């Protein structure tokens, strides 16, 4: 599938964390090596970090409750941060947020660094805050995140159920960035994953070169809202660069 040259790759082990600025047009492919992974992800405009991934605008702008290809990830400024250009799992949650230390302790029990060394139980909130801190960001910037590879469904009354086995070994998702983006992610377990064992699943991460999309790209044409957001990106880029 990858027709673009690979620029960087690594595999995240344990509760892996990663943050990087990835410029416009580049692709980030994440592969769930073992199956059942969860990647918590937040995105920020790399140059104006008060502009950030916005769960409500992403959902209401595209009339969806979850993410899949070819939908887009919207910022709070009416622009696109990224488009989903490839997707095997077909359902990615963005409404359930991330775990914190108290929640992990209540579900999985005590498993601290002193006893378990790097097999200790970590949590999404701490992992996000650690990486955000390295870019001058912090608690104010922690907003509802993406939970890539995880599926949570709602019944008619709004009650939520975590669907185990949504992502199979080898499933991948590819994002194309539509603006220079600060990516912050970790592989902590989904907060509603009922598995009492705090499992660490490996995720392969690849960044490759690429070009910005044409105006007939499926991610832009799937909704007229996405095309208008893309036009807002074009205005931003025209004025700035």
């Amino acid at each position: 599938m990858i027709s673009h040259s690979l620029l960087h790759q690594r595999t995240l082990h344990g509760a892996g964390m990663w943050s990087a600025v990835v410029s416009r047009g580049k692709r980030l492919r994440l592969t769930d090596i073992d199956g059942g992974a969860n990647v918590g992800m937040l995105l920020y405009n790399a140059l104006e970090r008060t502009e950030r991934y916005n769960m409500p605008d992403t959902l209401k702008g595209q009339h969806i409750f979850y993410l899949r290809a070819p939908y887009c990830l919207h910022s709070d400024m009416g622009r696109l941060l990224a488009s989903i250009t490839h997707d095997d799992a077909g359902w990615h949650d963005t409404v359930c947020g991330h775990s914190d230390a108290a929640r992990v302790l209540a579900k999985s029990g005590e498993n601290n660094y002193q006893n378990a060394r790097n097999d200790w139980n970590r949590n999404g909130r701490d992992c996000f805050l650690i990486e955000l801190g390295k870019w001058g960001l912090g608690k104010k910037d922690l907003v509802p995140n993406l939970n890539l590879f995880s599926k949570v469904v709602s019944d008619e009354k709004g009650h939520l159920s975590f669907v185990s086995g949504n992502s199979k070994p080898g499933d991948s998702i590819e994002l194309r960035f539509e603006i220079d983006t600060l990516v912050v992610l970790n592989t902590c377990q989904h907060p509603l994953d009922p598995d009492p064992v705090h499992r660490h699943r490996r995720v392969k991460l690849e960044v490759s070169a690429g070009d910005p999309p044409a105006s007939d790209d499926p991610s832009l044409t799937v909704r007229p809202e996405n095309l208008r957001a893309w036009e807002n990106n074009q205005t931003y880029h025209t004025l700035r660069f």
Partner: protein
Amino acid sequence: MIESTLSPEAAVFREVIPAGDWWIHEIKKGQALRILDLEGNQAADTLFFSAADPTERYSADRTIQEQAALYLTTGTKLMSTQGNALLTITADTCGRHDTLGGACSRESNTMRYAHDTECMHACRDSFIRGAQEWNIEMNKRDLGPNINFFMNVPVTPDGQLSFADGISAPGRYVEMRAEMDVVCLISNCPQLNNPCNGWNPTPVEILIFQLNHVAPSSKETRSPNHICP
């Protein structure tokens, strides 16, 4: 549908927020906040912050996670970014409220409707002004996804989401007990591009009650921090 046992006459504070205005006020632990939909189908976009530390604020995702359910109603704990209950909903004559839809903004209106809607008044502008007036340190970064009281955003089992006609009506209300000292910031939504306000933004009324002991005989004066836009 759970009705409140509190009589409006017992309120220690009452104020009507006109359509399109913002309002910011502290609610003390042990007080109850009622939001009254005066004319029906009016979205009250609402944020809460810990009064002691506004970096701890309402979290839509943590609230959804805590109850493993999307809609807010009686019994829902409104959770903070740090995993604490800010308030608990104690009465609700509307039935359910949204926290997925966020606030409208001039920027997102261009994406959702048309580029020429950019000039139209929107909740995010109201939130920015309210936050700026309350605390010099507060700005757009402090604005996470909010609660939309009285708004109906149904999600289907196959994952579709829509903005539907409201299920609220004149005189319906939601009431919540503060579990810590909180600051409440409301944008009384001016949106004209979808049915969240029944295509006609209208006022809401705020009532604050003192719980657990006799209410003061004289009503509180208006907060000095309230400056209408």
